[in-house]
């Protein structure tokens, strides 16, 4: 594997240089938040960030996305064009938990039978550069409980680890190697590797928040009707923030918009927290109250996804914990389930 060292203060320059040639998504400061955004000329990437406010899944699965266009004819509206464009892109400096989420989303969007070309094309044409968490950013981080690590190359094409004065850049995949030219010529030595392993071990140990995520699957298998489900949703406002912040939530709506003689069919993020999500035209709603919706969310992450893809649909980023306006904490939910 190709490994190089780059001076710490050179990183922003590398991202900016890349942005001259490719579409580069990088963390940038926007008011009080750090968000991933396409790096324009004059924009300054901000790599000393903890984690981005929003998960960067929107790079592959935008909030709203045009699926196709249509136009009016005397015989009715007819299809006019497919709109699946993906530019050669780089997602620069994502945290390993978020890179892990892409691997989980691939399982859904890139299945054998039904392939979601819109997601797949963007994924294929994007190189993911992960920025390891040498210090866990938040007390709410729990990646080690859900198959992740703060210094991990999972889902990454290039992994950057801060080893003191330098970043160690590891070119994990061929896709990553193609960008090696941007990273200077200083080869990394064995000492850098040793340092990285030490840092990785330390970082892993410093994740203090732990949840029994793997233990609850057999419990969920047999507790669909447990009265416990009456105890979570009471204060839930059904705002859907948890699902919008979540790197692995992927539910969407499809709707049409018409302006004059032309229109588009778009898909937009949707949320299992919303009453209308499953409500049928007849008025029947299989998930009729917030209790059922919360059960769906917990079950989907820790049981259904495991049944379907043998993976937990949570990366332990803690965004839902930090963003919930009424302080519902998924870690406590999992903890409570483990005691059923």
């Amino acid at each position, binding site marked *: 594997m190709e490994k190089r060292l780059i001076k710490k203060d050179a990183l922003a320059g590398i991202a900016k240089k890349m942005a001259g040639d490719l579409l580069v998504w990088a963390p940038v400061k926007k008011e009080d938040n750090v968000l991933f955004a396409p790096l324009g000329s004059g924009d300054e990437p901000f790599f000393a960030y903890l984690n981005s406010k929003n998960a960067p899944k929107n790079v592959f699965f935008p909030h709203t996305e045009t699926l196709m266009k*249509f136009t*009016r004819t005397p*015989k009715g509206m007819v299809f006019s064009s497919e709109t699946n464009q993906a530019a050669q892109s780089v997602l620069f400096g994502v945290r390993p938990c978020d890179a892990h989420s892409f691997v989980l989303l691939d399982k*859904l969007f890139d299945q054998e039978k039904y392939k979601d070309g819109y997601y797949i094309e963007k994924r294929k044409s994007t190189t993911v550069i992960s920025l390891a968490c040498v210090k866990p950013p938040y007390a709410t981080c729990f990646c080690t409980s859900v198959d992740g690590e703060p210094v991990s190359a999972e889902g990454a094409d290039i992994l950057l680890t801060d080893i003191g004065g330098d970043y160690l850049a590891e070119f994990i995949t061929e896709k990553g190697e193609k960008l090696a030219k941007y990273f200077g010529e200083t080869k990394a030595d064995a000492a850098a590797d040793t340092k990285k392993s030490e840092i990785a071990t330390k970082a892993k140990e410093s994740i203090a928040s732990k949840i029994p995520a793997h233990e609850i699957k057999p419990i969920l298998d047999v507790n669909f009707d447990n009265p416990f489900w009456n105890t979570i949703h009471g204060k839930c406002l059904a705002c859907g923030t948890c699902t919008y912040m979540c790197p692995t939530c*992927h539910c969407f*709506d499809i709707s049409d918009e018409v302006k004059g003689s032309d229109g588009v069919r778009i*898909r937009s993020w949707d949320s*299992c927290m919303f009453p209308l999500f499953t409500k049928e035209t007849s008025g029947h709603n299989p998930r009729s109250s917030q209790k059922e919706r919360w059960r769906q969310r917990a079950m989907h992450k820790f049981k259904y996804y495991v049944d379907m893809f043998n993976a937990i649909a949570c990366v332990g980023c803690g965004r839902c914990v930090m963003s919930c306006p009424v302080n519902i904490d998924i870690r406590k939910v999992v903890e409570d389930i483990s005691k059923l």
Partner: protein
Amino acid sequence: MQNPYIPYPVIVDKIITEVDTKDIKTFRFKFVNPEDEQKYAYIPGQFGELSIYGKGESPIGIASSPTQKGYVEFTVQKAGVVTSALHEMEEGMMMGIRGPLGNSWPLEFLEGKNIVIVGGGFAFTTLRSLINYMIYGDNRKRFGNITVIYGARNPGLLLYKDELIEWQKRDDLNINVTVDKGDATWKGREGFVPAVCKEVAPSKENAVAVICGPPVMIRFTLPVFFELGFSKENIITSLEMRMKCGIGKCGRCNVGSKYVCKDGPVFTLAELDKLTPEY
């Protein structure tokens, strides 16, 4: 690779108003590109997304049988935004259909068996597809006795009236049509579907029951079949849920770990017992 979100363009070839209340119509679509018909090769029990640009899409069971060449039919009740727009369509207009989606009636499993078909009201559409498939030409030899019990609230609400008459003329079909309440001209059977099932009392020997109808009909019909000795493996039904993508991604039609759109809509009662009761 076919983009599963893009509908095949179709022309509304024929519209048949099925019921007196005029809110259920059968739409016959022809493919604008003839080669699409082959791509849309379907099996009875599957469904499609009817796509009206500017309005949206609605998942509807396929009412024609693959043995009917040159077109595909859907019988649709006017209910929401898309189906209301569909009911405003005129012959010759263009729209789209996606699919075929979902699993299907398990034809291989049904082969060589006696088939009991029970339908209620508007849920008869994919059962009609199955019946027309089973009685087409040599297909008939692949199935044992075929018993059909079909009920509607009143004679004006029976679907496919011409076909029902044709089917009744055949001696290799046992057709039992019933209405909850007849009218002055009704000479047929009166009574609820569960009661008629009890009366017809199909044998459980080498038999499979395929049951589709409103929840209240299902609730009272299942005990009749259990009493007749049908096992849960040999009772098959089809579920409906709100859907969007139809290909197991958008996340709203799952019942536990199964997506009704791609793992269903057809399930045996034994399979349903293993699912969470959330449909």
